[in-house]
Structures are given as structure tokens and as C-alpha cells.
């Protein structure tokens, strides 16, 4: 099978993407992935054209930095063999295609609804009809948590099948929010509207998603990205990573009722998010990253403030981390809890921390670098091998330290921002662009396809949570049900990133 090879943020003509019959498409892509842990599917989606559906499959190769794109045209309502039977990475992608376009995968292991979006094919389906996995046994009991969360976060339903305190099976069902982000993207044609939408895909990954969109849009409109823009995007990404990781450490402490850790890590997160406020006027970095420009250029005064802030941060952070990792009561809670093995993460196809915790090296900053990654510094992915809560906590600790080093390196050379002449963003006609960014949670993939007049025809978003929710469901098996919250917090996945 021939495929089109492109690099991260490269724009190609849609016509150049080879189109195959489904059998060739299926066999060829599976062959590409077979026994190649460095390759994984970053996006697999359909685009509707009258009664025809064109399916695109994008496979990224981490070693060669290339992305292989191929496509296939199907009739609406057709019944075909599934990828999932041979490669579980496609499980959710195929459920989504089935839900939106009524394509029936004959040998898919479980073709249940994916997210109950408004653009689904069968409008009669609603959340209440969701087919939960059931076990007929007098000994086992079911515990349902949600969809209304006891705290303040988003809706999701978790159905546990337990034997006493032990979890046998967990089924996670999302899709209670129907935001229709991808359709709004097509309807709203102003750049400011689109950027605002992107900022709200997942509130905790504002920088990650806006960077992916800005990189993509600049490439699609064939404008160059200046050094100052690359600088601010790279710096903001690393700062976001530090802030969220620190907040996660605080939340993990809260879940094991370790009050000191919760108080100290919680306090340490604040100055970092406040720095975003100082820089761009918003603690979540909304309004900071924009295609083609930056409204809040970074300067020497901010750099000085950031270095002071790191100095204060590091001493407290190191002290607290030392205390945390040497406290027996903490270690007994997090060691060997919620294990996902290397084979399991490979099969699920997790990305980001959820892959690196089990020794699977997946990091876009090294494999498909954009902005200043691979330029000012070469990223070295940090790996852990046990795949338990302890590994995920260690990974956060180490990544915070690494990100601080990267920020310091970036601050050595601050490029000047010159406001460009009023540049016009006109996307090319019949173009295809794919943008990959390593958000703090993992790989973010945005894909755009334009029509003959240069309007957006499809904008496909894939948040890292898309893959990683399954890893959470696997991790709690055979654990105690009371350890679920800490497993959940150690993954810290996004509901809205999934529900779009």
C-alpha cells in the first residue's frame, strides 16, 4: 500500500493522499503497525461527502519523525471488517465512526456508543440507553458512581463490578456533555471565534490545544512562525506542565489524606499560574497564544520575575518532595497500586505520561518536534517502568524538574517580537494539515481539511484522554475499590477533551 509521508505541521494537498480499496487500506495500515511499538495511530476519522465517507488514517513513526497518511472511501451504511480485532488502538476511533456515519464494523468486539454527540447518525440514541456490561452473579455487586460528580468536576459515569472490596471490572462511560466543538469550528469562520473554541476544548490544557491550533493554522495559511512566537509557545507549554503537575501532586496528597503535601504543593502551584496572569492577563493562559501574533510579548522584566519565582519554587518543592517520597504511609498507598503493564499500554495505545509510566517512550517533543523543541534543546523523554501510581507520581516530579531546566535554558535567549504587518489568514484550497503537540497530559492531535474555496471542511481534534481512559479502567482491576480515587487522580484525564 502506498501512503503519503508528511512531517508534523506540514500542509499537503488532499488530492495527494492516496485512496485505496478498504481491503488494501485495512491490510496496509495494520502491516505498518505490526510489531512496531514506535508507530501508533494518531488519528483515524471520516469525512462525509454526500453519501460517501472518506476515512483517513494517520500513523506516526516516532523514530523517523514521519507521519503516514492514507485514505479509503466507503458508502454510508456499509458493513466492513474492523481494524480493532487485530489492533486495539482503533477501538474508540471505530466506535466514533460507527456512531457518526452508521458504518457497521462486523467483527468489532463491542460497538457501543462512543460519546452521544449531536452529530451522531441515530438521533434516537440517548445516554439512558447505554448498554452497560452486566454480570449475572449473586456474589458480585455493582457500584455506580456519577454522572453527577460529588465534587465540582465534570460528568462521567463509572460502573464498578466488585467482589466485596475488590474491583473485578470498571466501565467508564462519558458523553454527558454535548458541546459540538468540531461542528462549531466549521460554522464559526472568524479566527477569534475559532481560537476561543480551541481554548475551551479542555480548560486545563489551554496552552497545548491553542499551540496545536496556531501551528496548524499558520501552516495551513502558509505563513511563517516567528522566533518570538515559537519561544512563547514553548515556554507556555512548559509552564503549563509545571503548574498542572504540581496541582496533581497536591490532589494526590489530598486523596491519600496527606494534609501537609496537599497544602504545600497546592501553594506551590499558585505562583506558576499567577505568572500566567502577570504575563497574559489570565491564570489559565487564555488569550496568550494566537496564530500569527502574540498580544503579550515576553520581555526581560518577565524573565527576571520568572527566574526569581523558580528560585523560591525549587527550594520548597525539593524539600516537600523529599518528605513525600520518604514517608512510609505515603509509599504504602502509592506503590504497586493501579498497575498497567507495558504490554497493556501498548495494546491500548496510551500516550503521554500514561505511556511513559510503563516504559513506552511516546513524547511528541522528541518524536515530532515543533516550535523550539529540538532546536534550543533536544528533549529527553523520562521513563518509568512499573506503571503504578508511584511511577506516575515520580514521573510528575521528574518532569517538573526537567521543565524548569528547559524554561531556564529558554530564558537565556529571548527573541524580540516585532508586530507583523496586518497579515491575512487565507487557508489554502483542498489542503490537509496535521499538527501534533505534547500537552502536559500527552499527545494532542489536530487535523484540518479545507474545501475547494479554502473554507474549513473538517476540523478533527484528538485529546490524549481519548486513548488513556481505557488505561484507567485497566489499572483498577483487582485493586481495592477504595484505591480508585487515587488511581483516577494519578491519571487525571479530561472529560471535556473526550466529550468535545
Amino acid at each position, binding site marked *: 500500500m502506498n501512503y503519503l509521508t508528511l512531517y508534523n505541521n506540514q500542509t499537503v494537498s488532499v488530492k495527494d493522499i492516496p485512496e485505496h480499496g478498504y481491503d488494501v487500506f485495512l491490510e496496509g495500515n495494520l502491516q505498518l503497525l505490526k510489531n512496531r511499538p514506535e508507530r501508533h495511530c494518531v488519528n483515524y476519522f471520516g469525512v462525509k461527502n454526500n453519501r460517501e465517507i472518506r476515512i483517513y488514517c494517520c500513523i506516526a513513526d516516532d523514530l523517523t519523525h514521519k507521519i503516514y497518511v492514507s485514505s479509503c472511501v466507503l458508502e454510508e451504511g456499509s458493513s466492513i471488517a474492523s481494524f480493532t480485532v487485530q489492533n486495539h488502538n482503533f477501538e474508540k476511533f471505530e466506535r466514533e465512526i460507527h456512531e457518526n456515519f452508521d458504518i457497521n464494523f462486523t467483527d468489532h468486539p463491542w460497538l457501543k456508543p462512543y460519546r452521544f454527540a449531536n452529530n451522531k447518525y441515530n438521533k434516537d440514541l440517548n445516554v439512558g440507553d447505554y448498554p452497560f456490561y452486566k454480570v449475572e452473579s449473586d456474589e458480585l455487586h455493582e*457500584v455506580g458512581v456519577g454522572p453527577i460528580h460529588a465534587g465540582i468536576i465534570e460528568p462521567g459515569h463509572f460502573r464498578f463490578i466488585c467482589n466485596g472490596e475488590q474491583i473485578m471490572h470498571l466501565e467508564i462511560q462519558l458523553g454527558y456533555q454535548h458541546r459540538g466543538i468540531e461542528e462549531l469550528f466549521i460554522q464559526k469562520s472568524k479566527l477569534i471565534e475559532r481560537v476561543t473554541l480551541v481554548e475551551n476544548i479542555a480548560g486545563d490544557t489551554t496552552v497545548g490545544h491553542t499551540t496545536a491550533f496556531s501551528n496548524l493554522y499558520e501552516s495551513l495559511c502558509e505563513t511563517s512562525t516567528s522566533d518570538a512566537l515559537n519561544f512563547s509557545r514553548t515556554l507556555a507549554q512548559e509552564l503549563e506542565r509545571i503548574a498542572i503537575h504540581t496541582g496533581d501532586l497536591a490532589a494526590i496528597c489530598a486523596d491519600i489524606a496527606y494534609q501537609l503535601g496537599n497544602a504545600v504543593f497546592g501553594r506551590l502551584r499558585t505562583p506558576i499560574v499567577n505568572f500566567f496572569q502577570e504575563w497574559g492577563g489570565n491564570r489559565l493562559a487564555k488569550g496568550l497564544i494566537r496564530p500569527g501574533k502574540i498580544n503579550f510579548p515576553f520581555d526581560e522584566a518577565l524573565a527576571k520575575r520568572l527566574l526569581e519565582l523558580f528560585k523560591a519554587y525549587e527550594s520548597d518543592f525539593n524539600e516537600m518532595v523529599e518528605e513525600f517520597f520518604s514517608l512510609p504511609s505515603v509509599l504504602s*498507598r502509592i506503590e504497586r497500586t493501579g498497575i498497567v503493564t507495558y504490554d497493556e499500554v501498548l495494546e491500548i495505545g496510551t500516550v503521554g505520561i500514561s505511556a511513559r509510566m510503563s516504559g513506552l517512550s511516546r513524547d511528541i517533543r522528541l518524536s515530532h518536534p515543533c516550535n523550539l523543541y529540538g532546536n534550543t534543546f533536544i528533549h529527553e523523554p523520562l521513563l518509568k517502568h512499573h506503571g503504578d501510581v508511584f511511577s506516575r507520581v515520580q514521573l510528575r516530579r521528574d518532569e517538573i524538574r526537567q521543565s524548569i531546566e528547559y524554561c531556564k535554558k529558554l530564558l537565556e535567549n529571548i527573541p524580540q517580537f516585532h508586530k507583523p504587518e496586518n497579515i491575512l489568514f487565507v487557508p489554502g484550497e483542498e489542503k490537509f494539515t496535521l499538527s501534533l503537540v505534547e500537552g502536559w497530559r500527552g499527545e494532542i492531535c489536530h487535523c484540518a481539511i479545507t474545501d475547494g474555496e479554502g473554507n474549513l471542511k473538517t476540523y478533527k481534534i484528538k485529546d490524549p484522554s481519548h486513548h488513556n481512559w481505557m488505561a484507567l479502567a485497566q489499572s483498577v482491576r483487582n485493586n481495592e475499590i477504595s484505591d480508585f*480515587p487515587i488511581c483516577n487522580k494519578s491519571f487525571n484525564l479530561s472529560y471535556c477533551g473526550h466529550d468535545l
Partner: protein
Amino acid sequence: MVSFLLIILASFVFIGVVVRTKSIASGRKGPGVMQPMKDIIRLWRKGAVYSKTSSFIFQMAPTIYLASILLAIAMIPHGKLPGIISFDGDFVMFAYILAFGKFWMIISALDTGSSFEGMGASREALYSMLVEPAFFIIMGSFALFTGYTSFYDIFSTLNYGPYISYLIGLLATFVLVLIAMIENSRMPVDDPKTHLELTMIHEVMILDNSGFDLGNIFYATSLKFSMYGALIANLFLGAVPLPISIPSFFIIQFVFAVAVGILESFMARFRMSHNPQFIFILTSVSLLIFFGVLLVLGKFI
């Protein structure tokens, strides 16, 4: 009567002191020591909401629970003054009147039909059951030590002769503090602050309670704490006159509350499956007390 009033007085501020200690330990100022009591009074002035699926058991249980604890407190002496109720073997009734209150809470949790509350009820029942031997071995040892079988007689005749008997008092304090922590579902067995239903024990049982009933349950926790504080105080007060024993009583309660706050600030809670092992430690320490008593009395070796 004196003891009853003192325990009620101490219960007003006990949780407040715990919360304040935790706040200071985490670098915050924290609410005033009366705040938990004010919250309870606010709850008492509210009406309760009952689910249609629950029966009279659910409505009665919180009141019975509070009443059982008040009754138990009535049996506790203060130094040389007996409790309101005092008879031979009253500590057996003390233990089972508390168990009676807890039994009502457990069946009321089951009455709601919620899968969470059933889980919490089973955990609470298990831990209470595991705590029971420790309490009886301690009280039995003291009965053997003094030759009496009522709280009043035991505590008023308890005096530490040889040095080794001080060790008995110290160990008994340790066990009573931990029994209080487990019975009140505090750290390290349970976390009263958590919002996670799946890890709760006591908190998850009272998810459906509201208003007046919830106030009763919260107040019962404060009372239980100061009740165990009073038991600990009794281990050391002996037959000293009231002007000395009353201040010492409050000092012991205060130290107990601060100790609870510090314990809760600087460690993480246990994994649920480690809790039974932890509770068995109490039984083994109370066995140590028992052998200590045998040693002191010369019945051993």
C-alpha cells in the same frame, strides 16, 4: 453528674481544637474553636429531608445514636465521684450501649438502599468488631488489677504501685487514643475530610442524612471524642480533689485533641486492606497490658 457535665463542656470545643491544630500545621489560620459547634447548632435548626425509599429506621437512627452515646457518658466517673449510672460490670454495658447505637447507624445506612452506604456500613461493622477485643482486654485487665468490675471502683482504686504499672497506664492510654480514632473514623483509618465516597467509612454512611439528623451525628462524634478523653483522664486522675482534677481533665482533653490534630496532619491514611492489621495491633498491645497486670500481681511466673 460532674463527669457528665464536664464531658459535655469538653465536647463543645474538642473538634474545634483538632481542626485548629490541623490548620496551623498546614500554615493556615483556621476557624475559631467554636466553629464546628456553631455548624452543629445551625444544622439543628434545620429540617431534615428523607428519601421516599427509606423507612422509619432511617429517621430514628441518628437520634438513637446520639442517645446511646449520652447514656454511655452517664456511666463514666470523674475521680472519686461516680457517674450517674454505676454498678458492677457497667463497662460491659458501656461497650454494648455504644455498639447498639452503631448497629442502628448501620441498619439505617442499609435502609437507604445506596450501594455506597452499604459499602460503608460493611466497613464500619468490620472495624468495630475488630476493635471490641482490645477494649475488653484492657478493661478486663484493669478489673483484675484492682479487683473491682465497675468504672467507678476501678478508677478510684487504681494507683500505680510498682514502676511497671505506670507502663500499663501508658499502654492503656495508647490503646484508648487509637480506639477513639477508629471509633470516630478519623485518620489513619478513615479521612473525615475526604470528598471521595469510595474511600469513606463513616462519612459514606451518613451521605443521605441532613439537617437535624446530621447535626445529631456530628455532635455524637464530638461527644465520643471527649468521652474517650474522659476515660484517659480517669486513668491518671485517681482520687485527687476537684480543684486539681477539673483543670487536669481539661488539660488532658486538650492534649488529646492536639495529638489527634498533629497525627492527622503529618501522615497519609492507610490503605483499606491494611486497616484490619492495624486494628489488631491494638489487641496485641492490650494483651501486653494483660500480661503486665499478671506480672504485677505475681500470678505470672
